[in-house]
């Protein structure tokens, strides 16, 4: 085993140079096969049946008539399904979500809970039978309403402490020249990646094989191993091409039910979720109710910062959306208090979604900063620069690079911020009121322990094997560039194979940590391989392979505040007679470590900023109080930004390599969404003079706000 050493790799040219995706040709020709598209002989098709009540007990599952329908092979439900072990803490430090560990009891804790899987010879037969399956329930009253004032809200430690506190908030607020005290809300939001979750499970020679669409084959293989009490060597999960993830593609009902059915039937079984099923089975971003209180002196320096966030979780799984966590990184104050609180409701379990915590939290905090700038009469950028902390406001740790000021300076220059008239509601162009806004962004830069192997082949090429996942991030291509540089060879001499748990343990594509984690492992193995190979020597037919494991190197990293940063700018046009808000242009400048592949990195950052537009103006899943389910849970009822919603968006970066990472990477998958919605909302205020503290900024809200009504 080898461990990585730190120090920046000498640049040999691939890293930092634009490169089209190595799998790009396969994707534009339709040759790339996703999880539900790989053929298997004797394949059977499973279709999930979901609960129609929001809370209660299953009284009966009427399987008889369904089993007599054409092609039906079995119906699995809580009365006959294999038992699962769910009493464990998984690789990500949390227990399994019972919504994924299907058919274990008769409880129904939310609408759209999986109650049965019908398996048949064809998808049409399975679907008809699943829709014909009669399930009877004992219905109980449900409670689905999240409000900030709920007395059962309680702080929860997730991946960070639930509460932090220093100083006397009330005293500092009382002594402040300017105070902002406002409530902000964000709605339930869904990942809505284009490829629905799909998995095929089969037993082959005593091994369970699962062909899946997920964000980490190690992660999913580990969870299935534990749930089904199998030997780790008996489980293989593959996931070559993934049609988007954004936090949702982990262990879900489709894999678990497919494994159950493949075990019972002893033949390959595929389960594909429908778009509507995804809205209750695959997680979502919880709505948040946040209160931000800021107090500042006449110079704009913060004396008090109090950020409280409340989110909902299900009754069966606890998930905290740590929206107040962003305040622990961004701004210091003499008195500083944050809390992330949770309320348990009869709703599906929320989960990580692009920028978890930071995305909704930055909306509230960065909108509040804009309000403070207005009250202080200080430019919003200047206000932020005056409040740049020297060290972590809560941790007291030094920052491993904090180039936020450079982002604002470069962004302001390119956006044309200088000379901006701060007064709202004064610019008109035909039917449109115009405004500009800005906000800051940050997201943690982390890495997860990973293993990789690099083989020097006898034909002079190199093969990298790592259980990485390319969910559209461009990771496969970035890792090719990293490996080529570490090996000192051209990119066409390197083949990177990913998405197979048999390649050994590796971190997930999540938390903006994927490419950094995997690049570290590949760099370590490639460097050792390079050292081991004798110049001019011959390579045996089986090649020469070196394996790496970054566990020790990551464990040796000093404790620091490690984050990417960014400055977001937006220009909007608002028609106050129709309520329409159009984003005219956006610019984001980021300090996000060394950029491996500028072509795909720009796509990641612009994609994140587009999510910010979508969050600010469009996305909102509305839960029906009567049924407990969602109104219109599909891509018509849940609008995500489409072509016509998205203007010219520019993303660029300042030089910001992380000297403690072997490649200098920090991670770019999430920082693009952070602050983007706030920049849009701040621009809407600048255009109209009205603060919109509840997302999305719908036309009806714009109209009612202009009319003076509170919305």
């Amino acid at each position, binding site marked *: 085993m080898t461990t990585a050493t730190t120090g920046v790799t000498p640049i040999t040219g691939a890293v930092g140079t634009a490169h089209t995706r190595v*799998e*790009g040709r396969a994707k534009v*020709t*339709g040759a790339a096969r*996703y999880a539900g598209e790989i*053929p298997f002989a004797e394949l059977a098709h499973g279709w999930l049946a979901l609960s129609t009540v929001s809370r209660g007990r299953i009284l009966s599952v009427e399987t008889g008539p369904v089993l007599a329908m054409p092609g039906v092979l079995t119906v699995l439900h809580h009365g006959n399904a294999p038992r699962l072990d769910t009493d464990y803490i998984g690789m990500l430090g949390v227990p399994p979500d019972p919504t994924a560990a299907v058919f274990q009891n008769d409880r129904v804790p939310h609408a759209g809970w999986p109650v049965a899987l019908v398996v048949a010879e064809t998808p049409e037969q399975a679907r008809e039978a699943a829709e014909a399956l009669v399930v009877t329930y004992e219905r109980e009253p449900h409670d689905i309403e999240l409000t900030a004032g709920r007395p059962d809200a309680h702080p929860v430690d997730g991946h960070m402490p639930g509460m932090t506190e220093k100083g006397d908030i009330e005293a500092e607020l009382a002594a402040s020249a300017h105070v902002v005290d406002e409530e902000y809300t964000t709605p339930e939001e869904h990942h809505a990646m284009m490829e629905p979750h799909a998995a095929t499970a089969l037993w082959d020679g005593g091994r369970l094989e699962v062909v899946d669409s997920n964000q980490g084959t190690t992660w999913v293989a580990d969870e299935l191993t534990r749930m089904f009490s199998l030997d780790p060597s008996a489980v293989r999960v593959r996931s070559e091409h993934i049609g*988007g993830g954004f936090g949702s593609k982990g262990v879900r009902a489709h894999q678990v039910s497919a494994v159950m059915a493949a075990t019972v039937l002893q033949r390959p079984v595929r389960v594909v979720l429908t*778009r509507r099923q995804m809205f209750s089975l695959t997680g979502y971003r919880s709505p948040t109710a946040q209160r931000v209180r800021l107090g500042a002196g006449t110079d704009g320096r913060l004396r008090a910062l109090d950020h409280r966030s409340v989110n909902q979780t299900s009754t069966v799984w606890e998930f905290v959306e740590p929206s107040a966590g962003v305040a622990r990184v961004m701004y210091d104050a003499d008195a500083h208090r944050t809390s992330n609180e949770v309320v348990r409701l009869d709703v599906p379990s929320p989960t990580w979604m692009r920028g978890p915590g930071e995305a909704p939290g930055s909306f509230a905090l960065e909108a509040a900063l804009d309000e403070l700038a207005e009250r202080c009469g200080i430019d919003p950028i200047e206000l932020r620069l005056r409040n740049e902390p020297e060290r972590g406001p809560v941790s007291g740790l030094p920052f491993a690079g904090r180039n936020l000021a450079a982002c604002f300076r470069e962004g302001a220059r390119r956006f044309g911020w200088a000379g901006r008239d701060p007064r709202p509601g004064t610019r008109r162009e035909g039917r449109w009121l115009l405004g500009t806004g800005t906000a800051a962004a940050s997201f943690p830069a982390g890495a997860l322990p990973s293993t990789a192997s690099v083989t020097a082949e006898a034909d002079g090429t190199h093969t990298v094997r790592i259980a990485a996942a390319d969910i559209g991030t461009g990771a496969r291509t970035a890792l090719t560039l990293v490996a080529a540089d570490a090996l000192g060879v051209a990119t066409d001499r390197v083949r990177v194979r990913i998405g197979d748990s048999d390649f050994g343990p590796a971190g997930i594509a999540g938390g903006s940590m994927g490419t950094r984690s995997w690049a570290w492992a590949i760099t370590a193995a490639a460097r050792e391989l390079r050292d081991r190979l004798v110049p001019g020597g011959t390579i045996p037919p089986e090649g020469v392979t070196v394996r790496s494991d970054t566990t020790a190197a990551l464990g040796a990293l000093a404790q620091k505040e490690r984050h990417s940063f960014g400055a977001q700018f937006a220009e909007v046009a608002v028609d106050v007679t129709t309520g329409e808000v159009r984003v005219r242009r956006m610019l984001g400048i980021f300090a996000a470590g060394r950029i491996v592949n500028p072509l795909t990195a720009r796509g990641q950052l612009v994609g994140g900023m587009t999510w910010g537009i979508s969050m600010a103006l469009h996305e909102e899943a509305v839960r029906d109080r009567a049924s407990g389910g969602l109104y219109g849970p599909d891509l018509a009822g849940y609008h995500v930004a489409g*072509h016509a919603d998205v203007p010219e968006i520019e993303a660029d970066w300042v030089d910001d390599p992380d000297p403690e990472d072997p490649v200098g990477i920090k991670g770019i998958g999430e920082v693009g969404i952070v602050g983007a919605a706030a920049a849009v909302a701040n621009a809407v205020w600048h255009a109209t003079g009205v603060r919109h503290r509840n997302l999305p900024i719908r036309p009806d809200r714009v109209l009612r706000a202009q009319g003076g009504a509170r919305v």
Partner: protein
Amino acid sequence: MAPSTSSSVTLNINGEKHTLSVDHRTTLLDALRERLDLTGTKKGCDHGQCGACTVLVDGRRTVSCLQLAVASDEREITTVEGLADGDRLHPVQQAFLDLDGFQCGYCTPGQICSAIAVIEEHAAGWPSAVTEDVRPEAGPPPLTPEEIRERMSGNLCRCSAYVQIVQAVARAADENRTETEETAA
């Protein structure tokens, strides 16, 4: 006698005839993916809301999840697998690849099929909702980014590669126009 629940259809796909017996409930999309192993056409929503399943039927863009296979009998169908000329990519495919007009790639076949139709519809003078002058004698409007965005709005991309997709469609349309003019000359 029980009524028949399946029929024989002949689908002319990418210039090749396929005759098969299909369940009447089978959509064109499922016939392609589940019966003919043409999985390049994607299923994103199965409701006609996302555009991932877009193919060309008799030259017109069609969401194949909303068309039954039995209604596609004897139609000319072009899928993403039928666009390249051997190793030579279609100009729209090449532009998507060069300009990174995708990320996860799952909406990409639908975006590409839609873009090909957009370029043809525009060249044929079809107006869109954002076309200022829709009189027939006005001719095709300039294919501005705004026109491309409007015309491509039936195709969602959650990775949000929209900025790059619009650039790719504009480049391919330029190439198409240049080629048409050279042919005409």
